[in-house]
């Protein structure tokens, strides 16, 4: 049986691809595996990939003995809350930019995106002081506000690109059919744009869940989401690799799953039109 050259190259490429991607994925895989090891096993000089005694004790430990679930819940509230709040503000803005274009629309959009490029340290002090003075430090509400504001430009941008794909005539038809602006948005725009809105929501939940500047600086024991809580596993007295792995696994698996579904949205939302 002669192996054609295309078949040969397919084999080579497949081997190369699996090897390289395996190396890239390895740290995550290792974390997941280590989460099922005992601490002793986790730091063993002869690390094992599969041949060890699997145990759930780390998960039980992390969940029972630390406020893990509270911080998990904080992450959920902050990501979901800021994304939903952001949607409520971004949808009308994107509607007007997509369907009532003026000469200023493009500039306005670019200005909005430029606010995302502001380095957070440029406003670190005022935000910190304002939060302190308004009792927003270490509150979920405070973080929801910040997350909404920093992701608003991306939400508006993404929704704008999705709305532009809807023919304006459909909305005009609804106007001719007697719909008020609210009816136009609620009965016609939103149902048609639902996939785009869901995609925007998805991407922003991911971005907010993983945000690691404001969540680390503006929170303490009460409102810390997982990003901040995991950081507490970095103290030198804790060489608890297995527990670190379990805590990490629970923190990253939900987003890994969501992320898999959001590849297209990632390209649309974060490449700013450079690729289609």
């Amino acid at each position: 049986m002669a192996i054609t050259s295309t078949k040969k190259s397919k084999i080579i490429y497949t081997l190369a691809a699996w090897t390289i991607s395996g190396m890239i994925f390895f740290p995550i895989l290792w974390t997941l595996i280590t989460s099922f090891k005992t601490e002793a096993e986790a730091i063993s000089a002869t690390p094992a990939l599969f041949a060890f005694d699997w145990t759930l004790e780390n998960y039980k430990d992390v969940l029972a003995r630390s406020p893990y679930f509270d911080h998990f819940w904080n992450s959920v509230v902050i990501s979901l809350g800021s994304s939903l709040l952001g949607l409520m503000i971004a949808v009308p803005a994107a509607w007007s930019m997509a369907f009532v274009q003026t000469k200023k629309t493009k500039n306005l959009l670019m200005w909005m995106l430029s606010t995302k490029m502001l380095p957070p340290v440029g406003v670190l002090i005022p935000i910190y002081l304002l939060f302190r003075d308004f009792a927003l430090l270490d509150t979920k509400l405070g973080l929801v506000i910040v997350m909404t504001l920093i992701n608003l430009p991306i939400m508006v941008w993404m929704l704008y690109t999705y709305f532009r794909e809807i023919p304006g005539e459909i909305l005009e038809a609804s106007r001719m059919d007697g719909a008020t602006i609210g009816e136009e948005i609620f009965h016609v725009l939103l149902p048609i744009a639902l996939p785009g809105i869901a995609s925007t929501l998805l991407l922003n939940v991911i971005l907010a869940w993983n945000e690691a500047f404001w969540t680390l600086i503006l929170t303490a024991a009460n409102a810390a989401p997982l990003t901040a809580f995991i950081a507490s596993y970095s103290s030198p007295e804790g060489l608890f690799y297995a527990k670190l792995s379990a805590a990490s696994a629970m923190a990253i698996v939900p987003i890994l799953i969501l992320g898999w579904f959001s590849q297209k949205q990632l390209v649309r939302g974060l490449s700013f039109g450079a690729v289609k």
Partner: protein
Amino acid sequence: MATTQSRTLARMMLFPSVILLLGWMIVPLCMTLYFSFVDYNLLIPGEREFVGFLNYEFFLTDPAFFESFFNTLYLVTGVLAITICGGIGLAVLLDQAIWGRNYVRIMVLAPFFVMPTVSALVWKNMLMNPVNGLFAHFALWLGLDPIDFFAQMPLFSIIIIVSWQWLPFAALILLTAIQSLDREQLEAADLDGAGPFSKFFYIVLPHLSRAVTAVILIETIFLLSIFAEILVTTSGGPGYASTNITYLIYTQSLLQFDVGGGSAGGIVAVIIANIVAIFLMRLIGKNLEG
């Protein structure tokens, strides 16, 4: 399709986002600007005298600033180099016909979705730790001395971690760009007798230039503000060896409570970022035309 009525309505619908973003940008930024001109330390209550450009002078002549500035430069260029080259390579590879392509994609994209604090801790403790880390065990197995990553090369270790996180982003964007390449160009090149390297350098690479530019600019904006990875691994040390500008300002503002100095630093960071942003805006503007 616009009437005065729909235009007024549109303005009202834009109002909340514009006001919020304006507020988010202007109010704190002005406050930072104000603070940068006063002598204000949170530990010394009541003191708030106007000192002109003194804070800037102190900040910019501090040797810590020079070290952080260059660290920032190394960080950004290091990560860019690794992610762009690796990204192009991965994009070309993933574009080929391979078995299980979907699974390969899952594995390659995964690091981007891991939160930075987890990435940093996993790399620092479980991989790079010179006693118990996997790399140490691997080195010993080969008969070599384990590297103490964070002691011997703190900045480079952080570069490795951040590159690992951003490689998927570059790969995904570049893969999308490659897949938009007109196949017929490559087929014509085949007929003209071009080998794989020629095809890559003369057709694929130029086509990717726009996407590569976008990746460079977008990554740079985010890379200037690397924070969590530093906080969680080295706290900027040893000394200032792994401090970037963002971290420097953080330590001055919230660890030393020097509001005046930290604010001056913040303004400097904004100026630097603006220069990058101008280029990014031009790119986006071009894309909005199309």
